[in-house]
């Protein structure tokens, strides 16, 4: 039991911070909000050269084979720097391929991800914004050696620059299993790798709070080779769940990094801003807000790394992931809002950088599961299974 970073983890963190402080000023995040690509290819290439893009991908495919906690550290530092790079969506899809993809898919895709010449994304949500299998209506119908994919996906991250998109779709109707369908709505789902340049694929960019690149994506009779199936046909749901869990925990790391930096900016501002003849940092009302900001970020960080660590150990972790996301949703938002409050009117000004963090953290609270969704999962594991609960003992996830 040692919940603090060890020497090696601390070293990776320090190096990442130094690099990003030099290479990724807030100006870059601001510029990329108006950029067509939304990310700077030079920075992306440098990150690849540092080995970050494949840090948790298998060594035999050009990665570093390090635990997810290391990717978490990178995501935390990227969040701190609000680095406008498509790593989160790329890593989510690449890790799913590393887990469940065929040898051929892994050989084709993963080395390119590590090298920095393949951006990936994933698509799950449709009209109903809940991470439940019954919300999936996009359908892939077999046709010779191909599937014909039809459906619409919402909130697809970095679709504008992704070469491949890992799409959650139905290959069999939920009712195909007859009476068991209601009990097992996950049956009949599959994951397909879709080339975003395929005929029949189109997208509409969404204008978002974070001014990031998200799209509504239309698949209109898109022909996808059956060889692009990731994992077994009809049995994609467990793979999707693990992909979502990993992505959620990694997003938490990014939120924690951004929220801590945002808190630090609030604290620094308070030390320099004078009112009533003294720095406002000398007022207890301000001090106590700042103390709470640090408590909240620390809490989110501890929950996040416990979740990532459990996944690394191959232990059930979806309850831990939900704990981290529900807490980060509420508390990281409280942190960035508090920092806005400390900054007064300045934080409201477009020319001042603080809003770059505020808008992103706020937007990330809505991504990959709301507080209500995640708490519902926790309540299930606590209340809907027999046996007494005890803190510190594993809660077994349900569903």
């Amino acid at each position, binding site marked *: *039991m*040692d*919940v*603090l*970073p*060890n020497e090696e*983890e601390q070293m990776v963190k320090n190096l990442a911070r130094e690099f990003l402080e030099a290479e990724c000023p807030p100006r870059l995040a601001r510029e990329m909000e108006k950029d067509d690509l939304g990310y700077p290819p030079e920075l992306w290439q440098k990150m690849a050269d540092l080995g970050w893009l494949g840090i948790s991908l298998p060594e035999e495919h050009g990665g570093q084979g390090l635990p997810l*906690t290391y990717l978490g550290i990178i995501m935390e530092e990227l969040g701190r720097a609000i680095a406008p790079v498509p790593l989160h969506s790329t890593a989510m899809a690449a890790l799913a391929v590393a887990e469940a993809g065929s040898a051929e898919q892994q050989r084709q895709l993963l080395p390119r991800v590590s090298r920095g010449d393949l951006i990936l994304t994933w698509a799950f949500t449709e009209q109903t914004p809940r991470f439940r299998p019954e919300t999936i209506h996009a359908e892939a119908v077999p046709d010779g050696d191909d599937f014909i994919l039809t459906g619409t996906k919402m909130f697809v991250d970095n679709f504008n620059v992704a070469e491949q998109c890992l799409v959650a779709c139905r290959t069999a109707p939920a009712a195909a299993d007859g009476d068991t369908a209601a009990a097992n709505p996950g049956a009949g789902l599959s994951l397909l790798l879709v080339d975003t340049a395929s005929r029949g694929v189109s997208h509409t960019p969404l204008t978002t709070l974070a001014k990031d690149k998200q799209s509504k994506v239309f698949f209109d009779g898109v022909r996808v080779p059956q060889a692009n199936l990731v994992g077994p046909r009809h049995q994609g749901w467990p793979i999707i769940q693990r992909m979502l869990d990993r992505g959620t925990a990694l997003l938490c790391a990014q939120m924690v990094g951004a929220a801590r930096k945002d808190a630090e900016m609030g*604290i620094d501002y*308070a*030390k320099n801003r004078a009112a009533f003849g*003294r*720095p406002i*940092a*000398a*007022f*207890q009302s*301000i*001090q*106590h807000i*700042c*103390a*709470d900001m*640090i*408590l909240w970020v*620390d*809490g989110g960080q*501890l*929950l996040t*790394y*416990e979740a990532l*660590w*459990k996944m690394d*150990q191959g232990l059930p972790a979806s309850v831990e992931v939900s*704990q981290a996301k*529900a*807490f980060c949703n509420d508390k990281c938002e409280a942190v960035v809002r508090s920092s806005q409050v400390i900054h007064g009117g300045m934080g409201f000004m477009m020319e001042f950088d603080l809003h770059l963090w505020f808008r992103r953290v706020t937007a990330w609270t809505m991504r990959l599961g709301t507080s*209500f969704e*995640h*708490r*519902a999962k*926790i*309540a299930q594991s*606590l*209340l809907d299974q027999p046996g*007494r*609960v*005890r*803190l*510190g003992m594993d809660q077994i996830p349900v569903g």
Partner: protein
Amino acid sequence: MDFAYTPEQESLRQEVRAFIEENVSPEVRQEIEELGIRHRGPKVREMYRKLGERGWVGISWPKEYGGQDGSRIDQYIVEEEFARAGITVGGAGSGAPAILAAGTEEQKKYFLPGLIKGEISFALGFTEPQAGADLASLQCRAVRDGDDYVINGQKMFTTAAHYASHIYLMARTDPEAPKHRGISIFLFPMDTPGITVRPLWTIQNDPPAPSGTTYGDARTNEVFFEDVRIPASCLLGDENMGWYVGAMGLNLDRVGASRYLISVKRDEDIVNYVKENQLGDYAVAEDPSVRDRIAELWIEAQVCRLMTMRSMSLVEQGGNFTYEGSAEKVFAPEHGVRTTETISQILGPYAQLLNGSEDAIEEGVFAHNLMGSFQSGINHGSTQVMRDQIARRGLGMPRG
């Protein structure tokens, strides 16, 4: 990072559980019910003696003073299992960390083995009627007189004073110096002539709280010192350095299993209760509002656990606390209050029924907790003072 206990630590936990099963018999429990855990009757004393034989008290203290040179995590595991069984073993508030940091060889050899054997325990003589949060303004006086000191003054909320063997007293030795630089710490027996202990009764125990009630004690005390003469060898650390000597031990005294469990035990209790019970026709565990709130509290409880683990990890790495102990001391007690108050809204009017009342749930434990939960955010440094410390020591913010 490593969020698991080692196999050795897991097996220690099993050993401790087996020990508790074997040695905390119904007779021992009955004696605890009758006398309280701190007034040890013969059966409880025998249980503590066996516990000492296993080397499970003060595991992380040096061998030469009766400890095991073991890990703080091992000690935490033992403390946690016993605390869950309603029994206090070493841990928070023992005074030992400051003695280890600042005591003379003679003091370490006398007090530490005595604490381990359970023959010595300390009442903490800090607070005074006019010195609570502003502890450094304390007025209790210690005046050097030849080879002795003579103590005059009053302490307040000295909870263990009526059963502890010794007092860990903060007194003013230099009234001319700036307030933090004129304080010293003394360790001496409670039966020294000139000490008077008077009870102060708390709101939590009328009627008597059931076992398993957390937070407050039934009784605390005020203690009067009238020309109390003690040898100069009772001084801990250097004269007038008491404020800093005390601070050495304080962070370590704030962390540990019993303090953590005080704040989170109720989370387990309410989950287990609503899983196993309905209130009339109302299936509590199926109420979506209750489910959401319980999950929210459960997450906070996990944060309390992880903050405690962080403190343990810091100690194990030999690192220094800047704000982490204070962080734990803010988050956990306030969480405990949120849980206790939420339970009252989950159980409704049943949560007002005290011990002995018709229809009281679990002997009224939830009602008795309601009267005491806020108290853990007050004692041993209030959450407001803790936030000051986080801001000033942790974040480098200036004094007002």
